[in-house]
């Protein structure tokens, strides 16, 4: 079971639009893989749950350096530490992306949860085996890369 373009394209479009409009960055999707979890995480993983006609999640996965670059561009000043404000900013970024993707997905109708931010070294993202997962890798013009992980279990109507 794999996620098709009707699910993944809205996440790609919402990510690019959020970064271009609010972060002054132009990420390009360079690779999409349909991986079987567990997926090795980078340093920061911002996750939002999806519910409604399907259940799932989306997660922004980036290194500390790339995350600080994102947040600095987002708030318009250099950010060098992972404090409460930095975590709030990361949560806002994934919230905007998930909101944009939700609006772009015609079916299934989805609701989004509050964001959760995980910060650490060498952790993995695991989900139940019947959840289809795709990882979209983005590359920025600065050379920085990050990924968006989308997981979804489509329910029978």
């Amino acid at each position, binding site marked *: 079971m794999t996620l098709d373009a009707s699910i993944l394209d809205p996440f790609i479009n919402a990510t690019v639009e959020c970064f271009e409009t609010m972060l002054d960055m132009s990420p390009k999707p360079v690779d999409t893989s349909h991986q079987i979890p567990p997926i090795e995480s980078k340093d920061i993983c911002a996750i939002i749950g999806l519910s409604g006609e399907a259940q799932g999640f989306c997660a922004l996965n980036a290194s500390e350096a790339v995350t600080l670059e994102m947040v600095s561009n987002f708030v318009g000043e250099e950010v060098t530490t992972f404090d409460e404000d930095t975590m709030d900013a990361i949560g806002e970024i994934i919230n905007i992306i998930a*909101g944009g993707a939700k609006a772009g997905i015609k079916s299934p109708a989805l609701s989004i949860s509050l964001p959760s931010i995980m910060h650490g070294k060498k952790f993995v993202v695991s989900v139940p085996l019947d959840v289809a997962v795709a990882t979209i890798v983005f590359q920025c013009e600065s050379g920085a890369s990050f990924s968006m992980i989308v997981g979804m279990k489509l329910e029978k109507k």
Partner: protein
Amino acid sequence: MKALIVDDSSTMRKIIKKTLMQAGVATIVEAEDGIDAMQKMKENGADFDVVLLDINMPRVDGVTTLKQLKAIDETKGIPVIMCTSEAEKEKVVECIRGGASDYIVKPFSKDLIAEKISKVVGK
């Protein structure tokens, strides 16, 4: 010009505040939810030219806060711009019917905020 920014996210308040300052707004007051907004409104004698109001907030949300602002003689004439995400866009219609002057959907550009403020304050 004096503006009140109401948003539970410190990040969004910071981004909007910077944008307003660049657009020439002289005085900016921040509130983190509807309760705080009504308190700040009272403390400032309802002396605001515009309110930027997030829809999705804990305790008292933007829709309820808008109703409160539009129900009080001292505040009902202050233009309110609703801020929302694509996920809550359907609530915008309710807000416009409830007296909101305009709305901004995240992600938004800095130019768009300045343009919206200029439009509603200039009315």
